[in-house]
């Protein structure tokens, strides 16, 4: 096949595929759609980029925070310390016998139970008992 023959075929390519098209009808259909179909407003590019950047920054922050060593421990310590403070405030109004009963209700720490000759609490005043409680509760 020569180039001229190829170009001759190419110049006619698709004529049969469009011969039935009614351009006036087509134009009416297009204009009807343009008039009736709602415009879907696309977000401006700068806004899309801003949202994308914000999402990326949040993801990086989350990953960094979770991957830091001791991040979980710090959270645990914070949780543990809060109830302690609350308990100690509640103890402020208790009398010595009441404090002793509270103390007895607590499970004995390993260090205390391991010591066979632990002194009696009878001789401790309220300030000492409170200090002991603090030390038991860490």
């Amino acid at each position, binding site marked *: *096949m*020569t*180039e001229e023959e*190829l*170009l001759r*075929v*190419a*110049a*006619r*390519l*698709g*004529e*049969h*595929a*469009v*011969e039935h*098209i009614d*351009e*006036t009808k*087509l*134009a*009416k*259909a*297009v*204009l009807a*759609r*343009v008039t009736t*179909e709602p*415009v879907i407003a696309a977000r401006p590019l700068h806004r899309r980029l801003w949202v994308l950047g914000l999402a990326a920054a949040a993801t990086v922050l989350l990953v960094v925070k979770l991957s830091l060593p001791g991040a979980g421990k710090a959270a645990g310590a914070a949780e543990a310390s809060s109830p302690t403070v609350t308990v100690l405030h509640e103890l402020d109004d208790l009398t010595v016998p009441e404090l002793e009963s509270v103390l007895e209700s607590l499970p004995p720490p390993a260090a205390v139970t391991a010591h066979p000759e632990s002194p009696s609490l009878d001789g401790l005043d309220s300030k000492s008992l409170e200090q002991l409680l603090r030390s038991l509760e860490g």
Partner: protein
Amino acid sequence: MAAVALGIWSQLNAGLAFASSARPMHALSDELLPSDAALVAAYRSGDERAATVLVTRHARALGRYLYGAGAPPASVEDLIQETFFRAFRALQTWRGEASFRSWLFRIGANLRKDLYRREGGRIVLSIEDADLPATSDPEGEAGASEMEQRLRDGLRQLPRLQREVFLLRAQQGMEYEEICAALGTTPGAARVHYHHAVKRLKEMMG
């Protein structure tokens, strides 16, 4: 100004059937034909007749291009309508760097590619270089001559840019500058794509 030109042109053409080629109304002087840019401006000013003229002027050429680029014959008319719909919706983005026709063809080519992705997604082919199904549509091709069918089969096997440059040049008669603006390539690259396409098609068509 555009509206006045359109009015004169409409009167001149009253009763005449529109030609189907990409450059209609050769019998009329070019000065009497409003340019695409003038028609776009008139349409944007609210003159719907301008849109009708644009559709009439480019619909068949666009359909032939889409068919040559691999659109199934049954989808050609729908693709033309969708292309014009999207073009009219996005007229503010056409700034005249490329001709209206090549801009329109670009929209149509992207739509055809989307259609192929939706309907032929299960066929594993590179969208960039071989985005057409390997099988032809015998029923839809009934009206095509044997040579035309062989050309279409050959075009399917070309890389996308070779296929599009060949169609814009050989089928649509565009100049290389216009092709470059439409496809975002350089004149040198467009020439190379065209010559590769011609060489390969000649080999394939024997």
